[in-house]
């Protein structure tokens, strides 16, 4: 078992999830609270990693983070080294690659919250940000959990972006999925089997969390206010 790869993978997945929730919450709320061309465009861009080959995203990021572009040079100046083939670079790639998995469940969750609750709160003089925190977010908490779990799991399993952007540096960019690839290349099927089983277990456990917490859905905005 490549413990170093396991630790790196968990660190990457946890960091990506934390960063993405901060980005995805306001973004998803903005998308869910209106219509229009701008929102459609943002939604399309957010969803791009779902259909784009990971290697394409990895390639563009590799170029963007390199010394040939202005953002790349800026990042080099900030971090003191090129972001490509580093943990930070991998983090940027993971955040972009897992963006739809964080944003889309939240958009669906926010849209499902009955607008009547938002009106009820505003009709009591509550500011929009407070309404979001105290009414919308608790009512969409099942979606928040789904978003976090999917983001974490998707990051654990990513391969193409990691390989393009991070290479295969033990302790820095070699995640479990890269380690599995290496083990198969080395014909070390026993180790590959253990790594594959671990990845399978992580994914299954994560999905079980989503499906095993019905209590979270009981107060979901979709079902609220039903006269019993």
């Amino acid at each position, binding site marked *: 078992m490549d413990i170093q790869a396991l630790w790196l993978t968990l660190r990457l997945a946890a960091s990506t999830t934390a960063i993405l929730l901060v980005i995805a919450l306001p973004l998803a709320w903005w998308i869910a609270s209106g219509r229009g061309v701008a929102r459609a465009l943002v939604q399309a861009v957010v969803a791009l990693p779902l259909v784009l080959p990971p290697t394409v995203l990895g390639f563009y990021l590799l170029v963007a983070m390199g010394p040939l572009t202005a953002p790349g040079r800026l990042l080099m100046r900030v971090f003191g080294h090129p972001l490509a083939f580093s943990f930070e670079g991998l983090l940027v790639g993971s955040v972009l690659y897992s963006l739809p998995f964080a944003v889309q469940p939240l958009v669906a969750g926010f849209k499902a919250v*009955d607008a*009547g*609750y938002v*009106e*009820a*709160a*505003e*009709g*009591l*003089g*509550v*500011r*929009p940000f*407070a*309404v979001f925190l*105290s*009414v919308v977010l*608790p*009512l969409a908490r099942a979606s928040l959990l789904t978003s976090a779990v999917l983001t974490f799991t998707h990051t654990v399993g990513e391969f193409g972006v990691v390989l393009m952007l991070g290479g295969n540096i033990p302790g820095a960019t070699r995640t479990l999925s890269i380690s599995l690839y290496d083990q198969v290349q080395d014909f070390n099927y026993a180790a590959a089997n253990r790594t594959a089983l671990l990845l399978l277990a992580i994914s299954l456990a994560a999905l079980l969390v989503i499906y095993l917490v019905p209590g979270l859905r*009981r*107060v979901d*905005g979709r*079902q*609220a*206010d*039903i*006269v*019993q």
Partner: protein
Amino acid sequence: MQHRVGAVSLDVNFALTQPWTVLFGPSGSGKTTVLRAIAGFVRPDAGRIEFATEVFFDSSARVFVPAHRRAVRTAGQMARLFPHMNVMSNIIFGIGWNSKPHDARDIAEQVMESLHLNDLRNRMPRDLSGGERQRTAVARALVSAITFNFNRTERPLLLLDEPLSGLDVGTRDEMVIELKQWTARWKIPVLSVTHDLGEAFQLEAEVVKIADGRVVKQGPVDEVLTEERSRLLKQLGG
């Protein structure tokens, strides 16, 4: 105020002159839309809405004050109790978002007591009957209106959109008495909507009668709704 929503074309013009005013009219006459426009949930096509010294909406001056910044507190047709909060938390949710009075919780307790909600304080909305939810929603809006401002000079307008419609007559009558007392004591002006003749008479309020999106008549309930009362009595064989 002019506004078009679906097949209804609203064109209403009225002023509140009494502490309690009732918008009376049949379903689909536009009562709720008028209330929603005053609350800030609907932006009218044209017109002007003002309360006390504040202009909420003025189409010519392009003024539109968002709902949460208006000196208005609302309780709607649907109770809309926040499903993740118990009755007590719902009732104190609207306390003092402008400025929190020291005695806000005492006021909430007193309102709960008078509206017989004390025994329900720890219940979740899903465990309440329809009537209990309605009463809680009214209490929530009332407490928010009373605790609106600590200096106690400025009072918000309380908008009630048929909040008593789901109650049995006995409870409704009791609620009306309590509401009248509370709003009179704290000098909170009320604009409520009803299509219930009995409720309109019991309130003894100023009535603005609306039909097909127009104000037909405004005045004391005895004058404005005489026709309706005679018709009802005739139907009852009186």
